Each structure stands twice: as structure tokens, then as C-alpha cells.
């Protein structure tokens, strides 16, 4: 390979797209490392504290697209205190002071301030794409800066962020000269929107393919927008409420017939079910449908709608669809690959929303299913075994029984066998979330069979350290392990400390690990940050026998972080 000039190598590497493959390429030899890093444009950083912006900039001077993730996954469920960290500001500052021509920034679970957004908007002339998922800390003022200053903006995608809404003016900040928008998603904004500005923006964006509106956009505006943008591929409606006998609704029915390209549909944040028939014509061609926020569509209307969606590959719904509704999905959506069923009443008791029967029906009717998130009232081993047999292609399998330690209600057994069947049958399984009554046996099975497993979520499961050890020993490709309320202690933590350098991170909360155990680990593994989150007893340096409430450890090149708050203690 030394006989090829660099340009040839670079050209070959152009065909190597995935991050992992490029990472592998860069490990072959120094020459390849150099050529690869100089030609790399897209970089993925799974943990923003694993390295520093300076390291990133030094290694990849050609960086155009950066993906950064901040808080640990369990932060989604309020297990991580508010000011834990994950600030994007230092990254934007460093990039802005460098010669990097950033064009795309994708952030997940990070704290983003208006100041950061303003700096971002002014620093990169060619900035094209901003995607924020589950972030917080900014307001519509920051959005206004992005709209006003990013002259070639193509994509502004805000997914499930907590945004302080100060006014709907930010939309008006897109200059008249901005005609480059391809994708705009502001569904998570709670406040009012300047409707006229929105319509004008859509009218001057001929390349617009994806548009997701928020609750404040009424049906009349939707009608006007669809008139101007029949080329949309991805649509998220805002408020879908109107009098079905009105002229506006009739106009909508006709306009929708012209929108032959829509393949993704979502929204319905408010909905008048009698207006749903207008969308039946586009249901035929839908490949992706997200009704998980459409609490206003009840069981029977939901089912009626789904009967039209024969080509669906991805479906996100609420559990009010019921087992019977899932049977309809199973008989209609033969191409289904991904299903997510969310609880419509998470703290309710005993509403028979969905059970194991719905899941089994799906597995029978949809053999292509590879991705599942299923919140249910109960699950049985027999059902899981059947699902494993019918759908051997699972890549992601996340089950959440609302009562977290519920056994198989028919046999009163733990669900070890059921999950065991899943991991044994689904050889390509990469992500698994467990729930229900579970003993150490399920971990034995996971360690034995889940060879491709990269991420495991455990809650209220297991009996002893052996459980965790089975997993750490057996799952060679494990990258993320998150455990809560399970009886794993120091022995499990300390038996194979080298393992953690092969992983991105480990989270353990309400387990049996003690301060002493964590200290030992930190001492033996200097290239890990072992963080103790101690919310209640501020820095009370208790005895080593004291149990640690929350521990988060991750490998890092840059040692303890300097922005850790008082209640986070890096050992």
C-alpha cells in the first residue's frame, strides 16, 4: 500500500462511509491513519467527555459534520441531576476559533445555550444543518439567531427538546433571501408561531422535503402550506382540528390528493378524529407513521386509519390501540420493521392496554420486524419464546413491563427463559432492555448467546454479582451498560476492570457498589473517569463501606472534567 500516492488511498477511503469502518482503517498503519484523518469529514463522538475539542480539531482538520452526545441515557428518565454537564459551548468556541469549516452539528442530550447558538450562527459561513435531540438550555432567541445568520441553512431539526418559548418571531428571522431549506422541524415548540411568516417561508423553499409543525399551527395553515409544497416527503401536522363540514376541510381533502410524495407522517398533537379521512389517500404510500403524541385518536379510529397503511415499515403508536388493534397491524402491515408502543397512561393501574398477546400477533404477521420498543402490562415466557421464533432478525429489543418486577402471570415464573430465547434466536441483537422478574439466569443466557450485544439496560433484575459478571465476561462487543436497582456490588465491578476501557460507559445506580469499590476502580484505571453523583449528602466523605447511590464511569483521553458541578465527584 505504500506504493500508492496518498490521493489514491484517499479516493478509496471515500467509499468507506461508516464511522466504525473509518476508525478501523485508521488503525492499520501510520500512513493510513494520516490519510484517513486528513480526509475525514464526518465525526461521531459518543461521549463528549471522552476527548477535548482540541484533540478533535487537531486530528480532523477537514471536519465538516460533528455529532456529539452528552448526558448518559438514564438522564432521559430523570436519574441524572439537572446541572450534571454536557455543555456544547466549549466545543463551539473551540471550533469557532479554529479553521474548521463546520457545516453540520448534531447534538443529543446536551445543554445548549442561546449564546452557543448565536456563536454557532456567526462562526461558520457554510453552516447547513443543525439537529438537536433531547437538548435543553436554549430559547427561541437562539433559534432566531440561527434563522437570521445561517445564510445557506438546509436543515433545522428540533426533536423533543425543552425549549423556552419567548415568541414566534424567530420564524420571521429567516431572511427573504433564504430559499435553501430542505428540512424544518419545530414540533416541540410550545408557543405561538407567526403563521404568515411560516407560509411565506414555505412558499420560497422549493427544496423543502420535510416539515414538522407544532401545536400552534392550525388546519387552515396546513392547507395553505400543502398547497404550496405538494412535494413534501415528510409531514408533521400541528393541530389537526376542524369542523369536517367546513370549506377549509374540503379544500384540505383536495389538496392532500396532490401530495403524492408523503412517506412519513407524524404530529396530530391535537386532533378531531372526524377529520382523519382526509389523510386516508396518503396512507397507502406511507412507510413511516408516528402517532405516539396523538392522544386524541382512540382505538377504533386508530385501527381504521391503520387499515389503509399497507406499506408501513415504521410505526410509533400509543397503547390505546390495544391487543386487537395490534392484530390489525399484524394483518395489514406486512413490511413492518420497527414498532414502538408507548404507554398512554404510564401511572395508571390495570388498564388493559397491551399485553403479550399483541406482541405475539405482531411477530406472527410481521416477520421482518427488527426493532421493538414495547410498553405493556404483562409478558409471558411462552410469548417471548414464540416471538423469538417468529422474528429472528431483531437488532433492537426493548421491553418495558409497567410493573418492573412482574413475573410471568400465567406460571408465576421469572422471565429468564423468555429473554433467553430472544438472545439465543436473534443472533444479530445489538441492543436489549430487560424488565419483569429476572434472576441471574437471564444474564447467563445473555453472556452466552448475545454475541453482538452493544447496549444493555437493566432495572430491578438479578440476584447476585454473578449476573453482572456473566454479561461482562460474555458480551465481547458490549459498549454501554446501564443498571439500576439491582444487587450487583464490588465483586462484579472489580473482577475485570480492563473491560471498561473497551466500553464507552457504565452506569450503576441504586446497586450494591460501595465508595471503596469505586475508589479502587478509579485507582487501578487512570484512564477512566469514575464519577459519583451524590445529590443528598453534599460531599460527605463517608466511609468506604457506604453504598454509592449513582456511579457513572467512562473511558476518556482527557482525565477528570473541569466543569463537574459540586455534587459530582470524580474519584
Amino acid at each position: 500500500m505504500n506504493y500508492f500516492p496518498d490521493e489514491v488511498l484517499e479516493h478509496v477511503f471515500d467509499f468507506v462511509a461508516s464511522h466504525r469502518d473509518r476508525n478501523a482503517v485508521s488503525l492499520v498503519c501510520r500512513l493510513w491513519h494520516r490519510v484517513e484523518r486528513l480526509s475525514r469529514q464526518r465525526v461521531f463522538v459518543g461521549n463528549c467527555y471522552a476527548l477535548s475539542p482540541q484533540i478533535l480539531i487537531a486530528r480532523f482538520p477537514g471536519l465538516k459534520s460533528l455529532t456529539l452526545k452528552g448526558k448518559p441515557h438514564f438522564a432521559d428518565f430523570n436519574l441524572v441531576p439537572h446541572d450534571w454537564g454536557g455543555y456544547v459551548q466549549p466545543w463551539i468556541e473551540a471550533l469557532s476559533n479554529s479553521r474548521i469549516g463546520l457545516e453540520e452539528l448534531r447534538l443529543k442530550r446536551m445543554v445548549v445555550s442561546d449564546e452557543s447558538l448565536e456563536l454557532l450562527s456567526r462562526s461558520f459561513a457554510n453552516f447547513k444543518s443543525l439537529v438537536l435531540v433531547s437538548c435543553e438550555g436554549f430559547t427561541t432567541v437562539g433559534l432566531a439567531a440561527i434563522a437570521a445568520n445561517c445564510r445557506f441553512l438546509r436543515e433545522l431539526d428540533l426533536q423533543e427538546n425543552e425549549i423556552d418559548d419567548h415568541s414566534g418571531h424567530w420564524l420571521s428571522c429567516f431572511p427573504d433571501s433564504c430559499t435553501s431549506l430542505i428540512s424544518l422541524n419545530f414540533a416541540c415548540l410550545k408557543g405561538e408561531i407567526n403563521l404568515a411568516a411560516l407560509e411565506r417561508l414555505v412558499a420560497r423553499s422549493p427544496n423543502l422535503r420535510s416539515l414538522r409543525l407544532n401545536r400552534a399551527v392550525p388546519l387552515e395553515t396546513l392547507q395553505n402550506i400543502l398547497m404550496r409544497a405538494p412535494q413534501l416527503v415528510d409531514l408533521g401536522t400541528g393541530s389537526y382540528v376542524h369542523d369536517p363540514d367546513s370549506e377549509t376541510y374540503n379544500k384540505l381533502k383536495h389538496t392532500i390528493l396532490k401530495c403524492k410524495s408523503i412517506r412519513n407522517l407524524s404530529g396530530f398533537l391535537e386532533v378531531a378524529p372526524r377529520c382523519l379521512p382526509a389523510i386516508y389517500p396518503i396512507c397507502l404510500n406511507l412507510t413511516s407513521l408516528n402517532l405516539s403524541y396523538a392522544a386524541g385518536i382512540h382505538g377504533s379510529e386508530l385501527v381504521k386509519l391503520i387499515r389503509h397503511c399497507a406499506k408501513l415499515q415504521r410505526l410509533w403508536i400509543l397503547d390505546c390501540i390495544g391487543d386487537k388493534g395490534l392484530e390489525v397491524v399484524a394483518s395489514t402491515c406486512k413490511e413492518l420493521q420497527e414498532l414502538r408502543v408507548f404507554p398512554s397512561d404510564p401511572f395508571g393501574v390495570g388498564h388493559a392496554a397491551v399485553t403479550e398477546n399483541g406482541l405475539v400477533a405482531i411477530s406472527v404477521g410481521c416477520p421482518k420486524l427488527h426493532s421493538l420498543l414495547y410498553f405493556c402490562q404483562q409478558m409471558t415466557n411462552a410469548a417471548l419464546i414464540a416471538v423469538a421464533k417468529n422474528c429472528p432478525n431483531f437488532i433492537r429489543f426493548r421491553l418495558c413491563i409497567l410493573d418492573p418486577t412482574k413475573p410471568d402471570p400465567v406460571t408465576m415464573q421469572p422471565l429468564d427463559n423468555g429473554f433467553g430465547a430472544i438472545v439465543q434466536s436473534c443472533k444479530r441483537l445489538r441492543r436489549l432492555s430487560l424488565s419483569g422478574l429476572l434472576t441471574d439466569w437471564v444474564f447467563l443466557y445473555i453472556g452466552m448467546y448475545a454475541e453482538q450485544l452493544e447496549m444493555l439496560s437493566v432495572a430491578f433484575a438479578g440476584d447476585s454479582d454473578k449476573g453482572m459478571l456473566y454479561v461482562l465476561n460474555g458480551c465481547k462487543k458490549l459498549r454501554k451498560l446501564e443498571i439500576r436497582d439491582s444487587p450487583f456490588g464490588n465483586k462484579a465491578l472489580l473482577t475485570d476492570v480492563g473491560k471498561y476501557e473497551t466500553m464507552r460507559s457504565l452506569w450503576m445506580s441504586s446497586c450494591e457498589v460501595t465508595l471503596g469499590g469505586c475508589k479502587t476502580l478509579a485507582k487501578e484505571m487512570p484512564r477512566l473517569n469514575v464519577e459519583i453523583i451524590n445529590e443528598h449528602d453534599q460531599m460527605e466523605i463517608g466511609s468506604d463501606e457506604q453504598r454509592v447511590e449513582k456511579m457513572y464511569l467512562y473511558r476518556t483521553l482527557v482525565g477528570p472534567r473541569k466543569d463537574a458541578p459540586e455534587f459530582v465527584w470524580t474519584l
Partner: protein
Amino acid sequence: MESKVAYDNELNLIKATELRLGLPGTDDREEQALFSARNNKRPLPDTSKECGSKKNSDARHVDNETAPPAKAQIVGWPPIRSYRKNNLQPKKSDQAEAAGIYLKVSMDGAPYLRKIDLGIYKGYPELLKALESMFKFTIGEYSEREGYKGSEYAPTYEDKDGDWMLVGDVPWDMFMSSCKRLRIMKGSEARGLGCGV
């Protein structure tokens, strides 16, 4: 059922060659699993206060109360993003939700408009009283034949079709769902609206 049998057979194979949880000689896995589940299982936060002793493979501690109380809310469970939890609307919510139907109200001759929340009024009398006090005027008496008699003013509203209608003609619920904005007309215009149907 066949798959279960096949699976059980495999399980026996596993049992023969693999690590065991219990002492050598103990055989029944299922009994053991149940036993461990009931006694070694870490109690949920609510019940942990009662079972003060540390659980280990300690058979002495038999506590049948380890099943979680049905309604107990555990932090971070079920694992749903806070954003999603906060956006779940209550089931069976009405269309014209009481949580804020803000409408603009204009008054002929007034320099600026006001906004009211229609949802807080239970009927026409309350609404009209509120308007009277907001703009300091009196509305006459309503009659189907003659509209609002005895005053210069007439309360009107723009409905979903864009037409200006007299407030009070239709049932309150229908009014709530079709009203888009209010206008208090004055003088000759007002009288014109009152005459004829």
C-alpha cells in the same frame, strides 16, 4: 408448545455443562429461581425501609411483602423521556379545552384590542358581563327578534366561515367552537346587524 419442549431440552444441555447458581447437589432450578427471587431480590425503594437487613443469600429473611405496591411511583419508571411524559394529554380531553381559548376582542373606537379566555365562562351572561366590565359599556337586552335592544353596542363574532354573527343566537357550545374573534360594534352598524335575520 413444540418450541417450548425443544427449548427445555436445550436447557437441560445447558444445565449439564454450565455454571450453576446453587450448591452442588441442588437440582431444581426453577424452585431455586423462585426461592432466590423471593428472598435475595433487592426490595424496591418503598419496601426497603421495612426490611432493614442487608439481603444476601440469606435464607433467614423471608419477606413475602417484596411485591411492589401497585400504585407506587418509582423515580424514572416507566422509562419514558420527560418530554414525552409532559406532552401526554389526559385521555378523553374535550376539543374546546378549558385550558385557554384566547380570543381577540375589539371595540369600535378603542385604541387597542383585548384578549379573553373563552374557556372560563360558562355561558353568555357571564361573557357579556365580562365584556361590559372590560370595555366599560352596557349591552342591551337580547331578544331573538331584535338583537340587543337598548344600547348603542352589539357584540358580534367572526365564525369559522368568516362571517360576522350576532353573539347569542346559537347554543353556547356551538358558539365556543365556532367563534374566532369578537367585535363590539357601535352605532348604526350595530343597529343594522340587529334588524332582520
